[in-house]
């Protein structure tokens, strides 16, 4: 199963007429049919649209036209990202029958680059969760660590790539939802800087934090997808005009002499001993690659989880007000409008979403706004300031992606605070708006993948990718 598993090899095989885009799509649908029952990673398949796109690519091949960078490459899209004509549930009952009338910009750009969308992937409801156990459609199995959660919230997007049911996929990251499942499923996964990729068509959870980003088999493919989806989009006023670097082209640049900061606050108590050992081996590998390892401080790290869960839930409570049974989703009928809203929302949302709506509404409510929400925004500024100071001294920052390896189903689901605390290494970069990747850094206890996270300064994606690529090429996955 090594053929056609990367963007380069799949596109290359199609260009060389070794396989048609239609045959390749059919092959992937066959694999999905064989394994999805067990993995539960795809929620909806889009065969018609996939074959229509594959045929377009095959026509280009037949006519000898130049092929776009992802010609015929089968991909998957997280179910919080809008796809015209394809059901998009957000992992929620409240959107069980929702069919978007438009495509997200990231989807439009990938299809314009020739990608073939196989279907929509399972996720925690409205991207709220770290284990995929909050999906209304059942959890995703971790193909890399049987019996364990795939991570979340983009668990399905990570699992389909890890299980060879897509060459690459799109996920979304608000507090770690791309990087942590990437780490848990043993594949590279990246979020660009806030504003790097248009959020148009991403169904909002927390608008000042949400980002779309890629999962792929290797860092080069991550760079390819990120370059395609990045860049200014008039439909998202927070997408930036900052120029997009040629990430795939820059990958090979030497990393010798790169200054890598290791924040001492990230190596404290609460980290699994196996994870600690692998991260330490990973840092040694960076040193062998010629990087200059520096001890740095990010003194407000300990306040990041509290800050994140104020800001993210506040924004969620506002964004999720739109689910009221009027315009989309099922409705629970009642005799008055308000009672219809209340019943529809009470029946349609799952436990974690309700918990966050209540918490978010509380921290925004009269009398508590200053104590919680405003305080959170101020501490967010301090956390962003920590990183600004650190990046005056180092080029990138390396940390564990998660303090724990993939855990077993049900292990944490009844203790929300414990679940939140495990997001400690990822939420900091989310709050600060920085680019971050998780890249495989060995396995512990036989099978459990560990991820090394690399943060860069805002719009420093190229450096993050260079280091991740060098790390991967040096054999980090086998540490």
């Amino acid at each position, binding site marked *: 199963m090594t053929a056609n598993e990367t963007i380069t090899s799949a596109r290359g095989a199609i260009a060389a007429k070794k396989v048609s885009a239609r045959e390749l799509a059919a092959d992937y649908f066959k694999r999905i049919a064989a394994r999805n029952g067990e993995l539960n990673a795809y929620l909806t398949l889009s065969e018609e649209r996939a074959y229509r796109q594959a045929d377009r690519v095959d026509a280009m091949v037949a006519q000898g036209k130049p092929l776009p960078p992802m010609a015929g490459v089968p991909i998957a899209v997280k179910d919080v990202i809008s796809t015209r004509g394809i059901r998009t549930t957000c992992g929620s009952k409240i959107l069980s029958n929702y069919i978007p009338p438009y495509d997200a910009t990231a989807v439009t750009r990938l299809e314009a680059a020739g990608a073939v969308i196989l279907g929509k992937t399972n996720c925690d409801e409205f991207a709220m969760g770290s284990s995929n156990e909050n999906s209304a459609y059942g959890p995703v199995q971790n193909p890399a660590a049987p019996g364990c959660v795939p991570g979340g919230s983009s668990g399905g997007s990570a699992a389909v790539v890890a299980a060879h049911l897509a060459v690459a996929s799109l996920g979304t990251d608000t507090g770690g939802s791309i990087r942590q499942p990437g780490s848990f499923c043993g594949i590279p996964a990246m979020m660009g800087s806030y*504003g790097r990729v248009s959020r148009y068509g991403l169904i909002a959870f927390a608008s000042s934090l949400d980002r779309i980003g890629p999962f792929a088999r290797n860092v080069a493919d991550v760079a390819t997808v990120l370059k395609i989806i990045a860049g200014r989009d008039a439909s998202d*006023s927070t997408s930036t005009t900052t120029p997009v670097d040629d990430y795939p082209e820059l990958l090979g640049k030497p990393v010798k002499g790169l200054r890598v900061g290791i924040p001492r606050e990230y190596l404290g108590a609460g980290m699994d001993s196996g994870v600690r050992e692998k991260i330490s081996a990973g840092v040694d590998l960076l040193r062998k690659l010629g990087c200059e390892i520096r001890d740095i401080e990010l003194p407000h790290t300990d306040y990041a989880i509290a800050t994140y869960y104020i800001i993210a839930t506040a924004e969620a*409570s506002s964004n999720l007000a739109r689910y009221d049974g009027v315009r989309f989703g099922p409705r629970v009928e009642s005799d008055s*409008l308000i009672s219809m809203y209340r019943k529809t929302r009470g029946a349609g949302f799952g436990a974690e979403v309700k918990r966050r709506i209540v918490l978010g*509404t509380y921290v925004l409510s009269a009398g508590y706004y200053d104590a919680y929400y405003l305080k959170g925004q101020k501490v967010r500024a301090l956390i962003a300031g920590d990183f600004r100071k650190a990046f005056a001294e180092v080029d990138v920052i390396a940390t564990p992606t998660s303090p724990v390896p993939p855990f077993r189903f049900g292990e944490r689901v009844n203790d929300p605070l414990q679940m939140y605390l495990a997001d400690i290494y990822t939420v900091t970069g989310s709050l600060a708006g920085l680019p971050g990747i998780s890249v495989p850094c060995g396995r512990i206890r036989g099978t459990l993948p560990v991820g090394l996270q690399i943060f860069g300064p805002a719009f420093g994606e190229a450096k993050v990718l260079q280091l991740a690529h060098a790390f991967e090429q040096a054999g980090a996955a086998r540490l």
Partner: protein
Amino acid sequence: MKITREDVLRVADLAYLDLSDAELDTYRAQIDEILEYVGKLNELDTTNVEPMAQVLADDQTADATLREDLVVPCAVADDVLEHAADPEPPYFRVPKVIER
């Protein structure tokens, strides 16, 4: 205790969210624990800190605020109404809002 059962009821009212008695009790206890934890932010003196209300610097979104106001076609009304719970094109129908 940071949050009472009445607080949760009040907030659920604000959010138009029906909660069962069991949910009320569970959320009260869990959110109480979360707020207790969040209280650690008060260890920090933030008197002179500007709140971070947006992520990007102004010059990174320079053209975002002042684009030309152009009319573009947007013929999605049929698609939008198709999957609504109770459509009556070109409207969404809802229970009676105003009593005569």
